[in-house]
């Protein structure tokens, strides 16, 4: 199964050129397939029509090594666009799990405020990804520690804890580069760790237990031919690729502002992240607090509103010149608010000033285009 939302195939000769480049390093076949669509969202170009692939530039498809010189600070358009090979989905315990793969990827891990580029091993065969979500609401679940065990004919090939990640095409997901043992079909056991963050509303009591899904990964010329890569001529410009839309694969998007609980008092930006802040009055905050109003911050990427999880967020609320609240907003998962940061703030009311600060930037590994964003995050201020 491929990402087949696109209809902007170029002329045949151009497609052939693209295909040859796409498979230079990753495969050799020219199997029939659907070329990619892609869209670049930017402050001014967000809704522009899909663009066709370029035919110029370095012939560097396959393992993703394309980089951008002079990359900007903040979110920028990643230099390539690739599709994935969907390998299957399963429901197990409280979870739905999908397994996908694409070409090996460069990415950066983040520990505290330190970013560290993970070397791309020349042996790496594939970037293996898993998505985990609630099958009832399609809410993508960050913070579930994931590990993947790969076997072939019952023999162990690999087992690793994989990274929570953020990419422009997939949003939040879990992934890692793996070295496989040649072409063939592999058994993949995806182990989902229970969430340790608070869950509210209908999510209370759910997602706490581990579960393991047994899936298969077919690594062959046929599945590799589903993966299309092309370079993007707006690479490095401010903006982001439009996320992939794949049937049966929910995307971790933060709710639209009007769908957040309570009344949204405003939005603020920090380090290119957008924070929508809402005040949930006491009488609507029963699932969050013991009778107090709830201060809720929903963090997302610019352009596409992808959830920004695993961040340390603190708030200071000032009322009539006095500090009325100071403390951490807890990472919380709610069916309506989605993944957000929140705390009970007694007496939270119109006129209060809220200073939001980020003590720890999102501890998700970053794919290209996000590695310079969401790191240096200055304090924000809003008035309720």
């Amino acid at each position, binding site marked *: 199964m491929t990402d087949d939302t696109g209809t902007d195939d170029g002329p045949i000769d151009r497609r052939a050129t693209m295909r040859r480049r796409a498979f230079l390093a990753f495969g050799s076949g020219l199997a029939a397939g659907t070329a990619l669509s892609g869209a670049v969202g930017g402050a001014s170009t967000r809704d522009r029509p899909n663009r066709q692939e370029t035919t110029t530039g370095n012939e560097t498809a396959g393992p993703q090594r394309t980089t951008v010189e002079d990359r900007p600070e903040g979110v920028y358009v990643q230099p390539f666009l690739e599709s994935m090979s969907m390998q299957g989905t399963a429901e197990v315990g409280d979870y739905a799990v999908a397994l996908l793969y694409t070409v090996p990827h460069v990415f950066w891990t983040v520990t505290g405020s330190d970013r560290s580029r993970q070397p791309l091993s020349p042996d790496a065969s594939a970037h293996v990804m898993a998505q985990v979500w609630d099958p009832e609401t399609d809410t993508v679940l960050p913070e579930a520690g994931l*590990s993947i065990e790969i076997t072939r004919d019952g023999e162990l090939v690999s087992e690793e804890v994989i990274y929570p990640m953020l990419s422009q095409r997939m949003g939040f997901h879990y992934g890692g580069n793996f070295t496989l043992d040649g072409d063939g079909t592999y058994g993949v056991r995806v182990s989902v760790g229970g969430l340790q963050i608070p869950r509210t509303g209908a999510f209370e009591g759910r997602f706490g237990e581990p579960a393991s899904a047994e899936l298969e990964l077919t690594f062959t010329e046929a599945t590799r031919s589903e993966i299309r890569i092309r370079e993007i001529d707006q690479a490095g410009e401010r903006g982001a690729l439009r996320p992939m839309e794949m049937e049966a694969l929910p995307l971790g998007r933060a709710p639209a502002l009007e769908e957040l609980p309570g009344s949204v008092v405003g939005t603020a930006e920090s380090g290119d992240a957008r924070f929508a802040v809402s005040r949930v009055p006491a009488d609507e905050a029963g699932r969050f607090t013991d009778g107090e109003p709830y201060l809720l911050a929903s963090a997302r990427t610019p352009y596409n509103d992808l959830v920004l999880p695993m961040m340390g967020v603190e708030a200071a609320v000032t009322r009539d010149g006095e500090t009325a609240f100071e403390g951490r907003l807890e990472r919380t998962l709610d069916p309506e608010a989605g993944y957000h940061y929140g705390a009970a703030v007694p007496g939270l009311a119109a006129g209060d000033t809220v200073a939001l600060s980020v003590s720890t930037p999102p501890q998700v590994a970053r794919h290209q285009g996000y590695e310079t964003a969401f790191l240096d995050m200055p304090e924000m201020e809003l008035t309720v």
Partner: protein
Amino acid sequence: MTPSANRGLSRRAFVRTAVAIGGAPALDACIERWGAPDAARPPDGGQSLPERQFAWDESVATDEAGNHLGPRHRVLLYLDYAREGEPTDADRERTEAALGSLERAYEWSNDGLLFTVSYSPAYFERFGADLPESVELPEPEALSSFEDPALDRPDAVVHLASDHGEAVLAAEEALMGDRESLGDVEMQASLADAFERVDRRTGFIGDGLPADNQDVAGIPDSEPVPEDAPLYMGFKSGFRKNQASEDRVAIESGPFADGTTQQISQIRLRLDDWYGEQDHDERVGEMFCPFHAEEGLVEETGEELGDSSRVEECPEDLDATAREHGRIGHAQKNATVREDGSPIILRRDFNSTDGDEAGVHFLSLQRSIADFVKTREAMNGTEQTRNLEIRQRVNNGILEYTFVKRRGNYLLPPRSRRALPTPRSG
């Protein structure tokens, strides 16, 4: 199958491979090369044996710092009782006779043979009566929000241990009825009439053995395990001051007084990132605590630490360590469940190449399984995941590199009740 006849293979590697393979041909291959097992015989006139089957500390080798060194070669025999219902007296007598024969054949020491016999909750289910309140022996279970181990439910586990791999192999052969004598000691009986062997797990511990055996899945091809490391992860463990005493883990009263409980987890090791992505200081930080790395307390394998991991010098405030260093140490977490400065479990774990994978058979003894559960929960560092850098399994001790695949709980009765015990006295 016999171990490789490669002339270049050292004796210790050859014997280790033979133990892993097992069976008469493996033993014969050792005997052919190096003669009959040279394990120590009991003194003339017999040996007096402790009522505690697990009383090994007095009878094992020690290093310069006085740390007890676990016997180098191990086999765990997983056994099912061959009959439905309560065991017969005849089976009980056979079992005792077989075990007694081992004691007449070998000195009770690392130089001879040390062994224990233990029984699972599943074994005790066959009786109408429950275990007494003085014994706490629940069924095994998953003990973290991310592990999902298969649960072992054999009736019994025999743990064989010696510095002589040949002795471990010969004892196994004799117990399972495939060998009629050990040296000039005739086996009075075997376990084969009363039990069926359903699994065997093997392993080793001690300087040099991990380095000799690092050509397995889970260890990078660069052969990073230090030559003198006693365990695959490169560091010493089981420092005398970081072990519960045998007294602390003994059951104190009731029909199983001087028994203990035993927990065995089979853990797969995945050390590519442990050795590939981290330097020595980072490994020290995750195994011990960041303080040890900062102070340079662990030069290589931790030999210079003496008889203590010095974990008490790590900050007790794990959150402060998390904030300052972005990671917390394995030993540091476990130290939070000390009692009067000592841990509440006694480790008797060892490494393994079973399935051609690097692994650990994490065998621990404790007065009640609850003591193990408490220790394991501390190791999870769940509370510390409030700190963003500390994730469920990342920057959180050694959880990223260890995958618990199986777990079982057992009652290790006193020696006098080790043969097919009933849950009550008698």
